[in-house]
């Protein structure tokens, strides 16, 4: 169930990635600008690099975030609720650039420091939404599950996670969209992605590079947002039924 919006934004992204340099060269001729109109790397490969970076970081955020969220909502994990919330909000309050500054001396240049920064930055919405999603399940559903003889694992896997999936995915979407923007900063420590033309454009005052990168990032954000919304619709077909009133 891929929506029209996803198809259109995806197509626009690819078309822009392929033809942006041609348009740039044309504009350069008209304006006789002294700057280079063609960035050394292809926009398509930079976009893919960007998506990969964001996806890998978000994936780690999801694994750790959902795990922490699940722990915080266990009966035995109630004591962890406060510290987990604390970690999440602290990691959110650190600017990613500051995380880069700390991470580079430890793990060196490249994509590692930005992955760490993105991971930490994206944790908060996922933890929050996992906790909110699980806590919003009607108590009667849990009581019936226990009463039927489901074990703790069964209840988590067959009841809690499926019913919280929609809310968790909303958190993943927020994280992904934030991370697409933040990932551009990674270029300062040599992480590549669409941040690279942007940074070199800023250094050289080359408007062409800045325009390529920012337009591509914008298309990328719209595309990912739409794609995740589609996924959310598919996943929540079941759990959205709970919100319909039963009378």
């Amino acid at each position, binding site marked *: 169930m891929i929506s029209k919006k996803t198809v259109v934004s995806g197509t626009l992204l690819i078309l822009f990635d392929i033809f942006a340099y041609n348009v740039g060269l044309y504009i350069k001729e008209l304006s006789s600008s002294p700057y280079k109109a063609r960035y050394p790397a292809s926009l398509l490969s930079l976009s893919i690099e960007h998506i990969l970076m964001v996806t890998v970081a978000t994936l780690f955020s999801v694994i750790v975030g959902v795990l922490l969220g699940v722990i915080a909502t266990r009966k035995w994990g109630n004591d962890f609720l406060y510290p987990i919330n604390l970690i999440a909000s602290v990691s959110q309050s650190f600017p990613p650039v500051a995380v880069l500054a700390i991470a580079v001396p430890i793990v060196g240049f490249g994509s590692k420091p930005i992955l760490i920064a993105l991971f930490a930055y994206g944790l908060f919405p996922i933890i929050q939404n996992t906790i909110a999603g699980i806590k919003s399940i*009607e*108590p*009667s*559903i*849990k*009581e*019936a*599950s*226990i*009463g*039927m*003889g*489901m*074990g703790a694992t*069964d209840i988590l896997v*067959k*009841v809690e996670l*499926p*019913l919280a999936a929609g809310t968790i995915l909303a958190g993943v979407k927020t994280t992904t969209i934030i991370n697409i923007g933040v990932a551009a900063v990674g270029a300062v420590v040599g992480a590549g992605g669409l941040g690279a033309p942007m940074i070199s454009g800023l250094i050289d005052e080359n408007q062409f590079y800045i325009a390529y990168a920012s337009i591509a990032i914008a298309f990328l954000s719209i595309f990912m947002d739409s794609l995740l919304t589609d996924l959310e619709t598919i996943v929540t077909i*079941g*759990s959205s*039924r*709970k919100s*319909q*009133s*039963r*009378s």
Partner: protein
Amino acid sequence: MIKLDNVSKSYNQTRVIDCISLEILKGELFVIIGPSGSGKTTLLKMINKMIQPTTGKIYIDGVDISSIKGELLRRRIGYVIQDIGLLPHMSVKENVSIVPKLLKMNKKKIEEKVVRILDMVGLDPSIYLNKYPSQLSGGQAQRVGIARALAADAQVLLMDEPFGALDPITKSHLQNQISRIHKKLNKTIVFVTHDIDEAIKIASRIAVIKDGRLVQVDTPKNILSKPKNEFIVSFLGSDRALKKLSRLYVKDFMHKADRINLAGKDLGYLTDAVTKNYIWITNENDILKGWADLSDSDQDNKRQVSYIEVDYKMFAAGVDETLKDTVSKMLWHSSKVLPVCKEDGKLIGEIDLADIITKT
């Protein structure tokens, strides 16, 4: 079947259940009733180990349940709650197959079973099998809830105010259904409610509890006729005599009725045989048509009368009707005697208010 031996439960020094001992027999529909906060739900939840007693022991089929793992015990005990708790992301079929799946039953067997059980609770499997909980009405959802509890062939069913949130008509339907299922499958059912009418209607025995203590355990009839103390009297309400009638049936109180069979003819002359001051009139198929008032006619041997036509559906008592409904009909029609008809209108007897008053 289920035995509670000196069971108590305390939460921080507050005793919610105080030394309750009782035995529930196999095949009983045992109702636990009490005002809110009396501990009835706590008591019920101790039977499937959702709550652990502070002291005392509970036995099911002679086995101390503290020696059984809670989850395994609960898979063998059906559980129905007021809020139903169907899993919204699963279809009716998936909801009903949860426990059989937990018990690792054969897949094909589960499917057959789900169809059979939906049928039994009054839901057409071809319509409801693939519906989702949000597409069901409250009554339908609770039927699925009952089906889910029955799906794994549990011998014991625990029901916690299962019909508390339903409208009166649906409630009455489901009460009848659970009585039928109870008789048909011979399950032991422990049923918690605060509705005394419900308890009297369906129970084989009733346990009244108050402040965590047992007040009286007896059959509905005995509780109504011999309430142990003031509390039970007030709990039963001032209409307990009428309530008692809701467990008594017309068929046990009716007797033969005199009639004149019209057999297509006009009403003619009566014979000496008629000793009462009224007589039922039936048609050639013995269907009730009306009654003749003989009180005003002269005392000649042959009296000519006309008769008052009635609709048996409105006027007559049914064989399986409760006396409560019948007395209500008597009041409505201002009549001390009512004819008793089968569903098709065939006159089979009559019931007299005097009998109800003296024999109950």
